[in-house]
């Protein structure tokens, strides 16, 4: 494989955990709930997914366990933020710290252990195309994730369920007045976000870099939170953002291909710096932000 092919293929894989987590957060935020605990839920999912996949030799079980762990942690958040009407920012930070701590605790016995990554699945014909062929030789989770993005876009914009979720996020009082159980719908949205974040973590630890190292999520949960803002709460734009960050995280390889020698710390900082710049560029369009922001985002609702 040439270096270009390697970067093309790698971008999709690197974007996958970001996209999984961001799509889950998108649903929670469209329902009006800001869950800042993504980093912790991903870290917990990564540890649980790795331990289960390591002991059972099954990636499927690893992903299942990781999504259960993500849901469990998101339910702690939901209890505080929805049940007890606590400040959503503080509640998100709390489960973030808790998730990171549990992640190190659970992963500790398997520090530096490795797993076999599952094989790649080449799509016939497409994978043989020149230049862009490598894009179609990925593990199955990559295809599923990008497929899911399409499903989520369709559900949010073209289905009754999507309409209900959006109604609850835009105007919970009106939604309740016409008979929707606002808190139940929000609870389901938060739990979905937890499952997605857990699986995002499992993808990072069992497929993308199948090796357990404490702190391996390294800010990717926060980048996923930022992606939802960049995408101004639309699935399509979030996919675009995830691909951009997937490519950025391969910055080292790209720089090497271009023959530039830069300190590794500079390259490691690149995705974070770009996050800040993009955030400023996109948020500065205040009118567009006001049009797209979920109206009741972060506000507690007394059921």
């Amino acid at each position, binding site marked *: 494989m040439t270096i270009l092919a390697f970067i093309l293929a790698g971008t999709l894989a690197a974007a996958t955990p970001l996209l999984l987590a961001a799509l889950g957060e998108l649903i929670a935020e469209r329902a009006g709930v800001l869950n*800042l605990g993504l980093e*912790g839920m991903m870290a917990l999912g990564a540890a649980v997914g790795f331990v289960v996949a390591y002991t059972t030799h099954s990636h499927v079980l690893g992903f299942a366990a990781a999504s259960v762990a993500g849901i469990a942690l998101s339910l*702690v958040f939901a*209890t*505080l933020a929805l049940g*007890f*009407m*606590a*400040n959503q*920012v*503080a*509640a998100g*930070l*709390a*489960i*973030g*710290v*808790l*998730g*990171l*701590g*549990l*992640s*190190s*605790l659970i992963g*500790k016995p398997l520090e530096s252990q490795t797993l076999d990554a599952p094989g790649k699945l080449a799509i016939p014909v497409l994978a043989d195309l020149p230049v862009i062929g490598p894009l179609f030789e990925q593990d199955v989770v990559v295809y599923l994730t990008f497929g899911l993005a399409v499903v989520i876009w369709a559900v949010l914009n073209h289905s009754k369920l999507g309409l209900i979720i959006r109604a609850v996020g835009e105007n919970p009082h009106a939604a309740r007045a016409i008979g929707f159980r606002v808190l139940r719908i929000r609870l389901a949205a938060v739990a979905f976000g937890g499952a997605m974040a857990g699986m995002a973590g499992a993808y990072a630890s069992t497929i993308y870099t199948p090796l357990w190292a*404490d702190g391996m999520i*390294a*800010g990717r949960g*926060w980048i996923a*939170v*930022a992606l939802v*803002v960049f995408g101004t709460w639309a699935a399509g734009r979030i996919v675009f953002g995830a691909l951009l960050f997937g490519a950025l995280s391969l910055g080292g390889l790209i720089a090497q291909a271009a023959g530039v020698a830069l*300190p590794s*710390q*500079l390259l*490691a*900082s690149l995705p*974070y*710096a770009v*996050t*800040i710049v993009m*955030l*400023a*560029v996109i*948020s*500065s369009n*205040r009118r567009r*932000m006001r049009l797209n922001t979920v109206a009741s985002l972060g506000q507690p609702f*007394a059921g």
Partner: protein
Amino acid sequence: MKITFERRAALSRRVLFAAPLIALGLTMLTSLILFAALGKPAGQALYSLLLEPFVGWYNISEVLLKMGPLMLIAQGLAIGFRANVFNIGAEGQLIIGALCASALPVYFPEGSSPLMLPAMIALGAVGGAAWAAIAAGLRVRFNANEILVTLMLTLIATQVLNYLLLGPWKDPHGFNFPQSVIFPDAALLPILLSGTRVNISVLAALLVSALAYVMMRHRFSGYQLLVGGLAPRAARYAGFTEARAVWVSLLLGGLMAGLAGACEVAGPLGQLQRSVSTGYGYSAIIVAYLGGLNPLGIVVSAFLMAALFIGGDNAMVSADLPVAAVFVFQGLLLVFYLGSLTFIRHRVILNWAGRA
């Protein structure tokens, strides 16, 4: 059955103490179960975490040493949290403060001027404030969310620290360890209690706490900040701007964190090392909340959190707990605190007749 929460009209002083105490109790109980489930000696672990920090003069002095930076940073953060400005990047501001303060002894390792230490402290404070100012500027000018920006700036600050310690600032005689030269005496804070590592920075932290109390209680600026955060529209009518709240909150938060960073390198570390970033900036968020965002409450919660850090170190040795257990404990504390706060702020009404 239907449960509703009705907001209590008046809050008693009990809140300040009841919620953290309930949270501490529930956290202990949960950890006991968790440690037992992990096959660790749970009783021993809890003894190490909660009681051992207060046994013996040495342990107590170490608690005082850790309390300083936690208190300093939490006081700064609480100002912002009260105004609904969420600076969660104090860890990065601490790192940049430590870097700026270290620049002097790194470039003048033989320096003996009595001005060195004050200059380092000032550089640290300015550095921390400047790092936070990036977030304030972006929020005010470009509407960029300060939560995400301050966090990203922390991740970048960590990389800057690594770059300097592995490259230009690495001690040439340091056996290739990622650390700077050892600072000269002129760059070190005076020891407060002889025979311990406690330096005068803990007094500075107490002084800052007193100032924060006066500012919140008796100064108009504290009131403005509170209103700006709670009711931005009302604040605008009254002539206070949200932009001002953002600038003041982030600059003060960054200043305190930078100061704490400077005091770490000029205090217990005596050089710039990676371990300058041990999570004080994150823990201080929890300290600020547990203290009820109240300057006096924060003094108490900083002391408790410092004891937890020392207890965690002890538990690692005596009960074979990993470092991460402390973060689990901290996370549980905040979770239970936020939960119990609801029960104290609201009257719980049980309606057995069903939906009504």
